[in-house]
């Protein structure tokens, strides 16, 4: 074959047609245009989408959890606190446990190996192996590096004071939202709002840069209650003793600060342990002092007497004929079990005469009495924000018959809650005015409250109430050495299906020291069934024990000379029911 140099190739000397050159040029230009168009599209029009895609590869949004606020008592003792715990969960499909691994996991979780296997043998994609583990145990679980076993951070609420404070503080559910008590009433303030932020993570999952904070987390607020743990414990333990002694069904104690209206203690029995609610029944949950109303009986007598005094109908020494111990109003007859003869108004309260109270009531107009009960807060909830709070029953004055007006004077035909009763006694402990109750600690006591009676009337009734706890009264057992005490017993038959049954509610409401009242304590014992059922025998001793301990705990100066208590050798005067 004959070789030809390229430059000398005969083909080159051949002239090509012009169109071929153009075609190539146009094709190349066209390709360039397509490329430019494409890059323009990507850079300018589709920019956002691609940017998002890119960011999604290195940016992460992480949640920042917020803790629920603590609840403390007035002295800062913790009543409820959230601490982090971890839950162990698994994707059953991914889990492959060697027998040794399963055993070590089981021993860490304090579970049976078979139980773990049973939990993992499910079709679901997600199972909790164990919830709410302490962090140190959870760390040891994660050190095992088991495939398919994961952890989740959660919070658990602890209640160090347990059953003593259960009704007041309440508890939260699994989702960390309030279910009962303060936890529910103040849920909006206690609950924190979780936040989130955007970060850049590196290949190993470490956060390398904070891009922006999407929502800052909001920590829950701390709630400081008016409760004093020491007083609460006193109230709880003495009530518990009394319930055991009298074999009673239930009971409640309310301790109020007479000066500020703060609720210093609120104990109910039966109670429950908020840290372990597996065997909870409805009766334990009830915050009886707020949710159960009862016919108060004689504890209402001082109010009628005060109204009659205030209206100028009687004076404290006006004689009232209570003989012969029976009185017929319309078709009904009311009676005193012990006929007393002529009593002064003060003695009517001291000896708790039904006839005397009824006569005082009948000297008043129904509207006046209704207006007084209404302004004392009976018949309507106190609106403390507590779940399930009731207002008791107070029928409108128009529907009262004379017999009803008479029985209402001694606390029948009307029903109240224990906390309403305690609050109403403020008028006698506070020179005739009422201040609102507060569950939270107040920084300054409220100024003058709503005036119900004149200061003069309040002081007169106060001394009548002091007579009631002295020898010759219905509750000598309410006396406390070193302090002057005033109060009133109540014993009422329970209403069952519209009729009065042979079951009783014993109560006592009082305050001390009389010279400058500091505390108001109301005690209610439901169905004492060990023989004694008078308020003076059942509720008054609880009052005395709680009051004596509380006054000492608060460092209130004694206002009476120290002398041995004179408990009448004979039976105390029996109040009427």
């Amino acid at each position, binding site marked *: 074959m004959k070789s030809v140099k390229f430059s000398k190739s005969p083909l080159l000397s051949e002239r090509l047609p012009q169109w071929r050159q153009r075609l190539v040029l146009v094709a190349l230009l066209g390709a360039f245009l397509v490329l430019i168009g494409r890059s323009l599209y990507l850079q300018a029009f589709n920019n956002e989408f691609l940017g998002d895609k890119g960011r999604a590869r290195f940016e992460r949004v992480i949640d920042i959890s917020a803790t629920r606020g603590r609840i403390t008592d007035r002295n800062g003792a*913790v009543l409820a*606190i959230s601490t982090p715990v971890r839950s162990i969960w698994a994707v059953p499909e991914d889990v492959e446990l060697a027998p040794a691994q399963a055993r070590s996991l089981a021993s860490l979780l304090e579970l049976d190996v078979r139980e773990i296997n049973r939990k993992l043998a499910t079709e679901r994609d997600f199972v909790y192996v164990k919830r709410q583990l302490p*962090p140190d145990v959870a760390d040891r679980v994660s050190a095992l590096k088991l495939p398919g076993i994961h952890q989740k951070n959660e919070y658990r609420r602890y209640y*160090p004071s347990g059953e003593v404070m259960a009704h007041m503080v309440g508890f939260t559910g699994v989702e960390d939202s309030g279910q009962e008590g303060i936890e529910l009433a103040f849920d909006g303030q206690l609950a924190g709002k979780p936040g989130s932020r955007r970060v850049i993570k590196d290949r190993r999952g470490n956060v390398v*840069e904070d891009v922006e904070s999407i929502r800052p987390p909001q920590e829950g607020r701390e709630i400081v209650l008016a409760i004093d*743990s020491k007083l609460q414990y006193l109230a709880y333990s003495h009530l518990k003793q009394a319930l055991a002694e009298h074999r009673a069904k239930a009971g409640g104690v309310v301790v109020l600060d007479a000066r500020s209206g703060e609720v210093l203690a609120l104990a109910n029995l039966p109670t429950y342990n908020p840290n372990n609610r597996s065997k909870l029944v409805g009766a334990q949950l009830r915050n009886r002092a707020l949710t159960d109303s009862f016919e108060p009986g004689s504890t209402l007598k001082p109010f009628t007497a005060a109204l009659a005094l205030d209206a100028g109908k009687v004076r404290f020494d006006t004689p009232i004929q209570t003989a012969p111990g029976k009185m017929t109003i319309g078709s009904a007859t009311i009676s005193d079990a012990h006929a007393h003869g002529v009593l002064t108004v003060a003695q009517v309260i001291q000896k708790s005469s039904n006839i005397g109270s009824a006569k005082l009531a009948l000297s008043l107009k129904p509207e006046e009495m209704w207006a007084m009960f209404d302004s004392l807060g009976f018949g309507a909830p106190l609106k403390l924000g507590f779940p399930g709070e009731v207002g008791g029953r107070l029928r409108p004055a128009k529907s009262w018959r004379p017999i009803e007006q008479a029985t209402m004077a001694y606390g029948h035909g009307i029903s109240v809650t224990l906390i309403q009763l305690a609050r109403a006694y403020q008028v006698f402990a506070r020179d005739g005015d009422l201040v609102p109750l507060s569950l939270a600690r107040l920084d300054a006591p409220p100024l003058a409250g709503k005036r119900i009676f004149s200061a003069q009337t309040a002081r007169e009734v106060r001394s009548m109430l002091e007579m009631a706890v002295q020898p010759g009264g219905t509750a000598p057992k309410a006396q406390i*050495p070193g302090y002057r005490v005033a109060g009133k017993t109540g014993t009422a038959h329970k209403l069952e299906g519209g009729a009065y049954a042979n079951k009783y509610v014993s109560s006592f409401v009082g305050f001390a020291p009389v010279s400058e009242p500091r505390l108001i304590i109301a005690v209610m014992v439901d169905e004492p069934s060990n023989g004694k059922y008078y308020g003076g025998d059942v509720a008054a001793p609880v009052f005395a024990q709680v009051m004596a301990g509380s006054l000492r705990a608060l460092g209130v100066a004694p206002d009476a000379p120290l002398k041995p208590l004179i408990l009448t050798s004979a039976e105390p005067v029996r109040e009427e029911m």
Partner: protein
Amino acid sequence: MVRLNLLLLLILLVCALSVVASNHRARKVFSELETGQKRMRDLDVEWGQLQLEQSTLAAHVRVAAIARDKLGMKPPAPGQIISVDAPPGK
């Protein structure tokens, strides 16, 4: 002209390197911040647990039981209490 271009190139190089350096420093400081914040959270958790422990140990039920049973304490009888008036002004 060439000298100006060389100068600009030099400035550009310095700027580019300092951007790299400051970015690196920002990340380092940020990770320190992260560590600090984590420590803060951990301490907060520990504080909560200590508070819980304290209030469990100081529970009145427990204190009363120890005082009564272990230490043999009892409330003073009324006659045993001497009250002293605080001097005025205190």
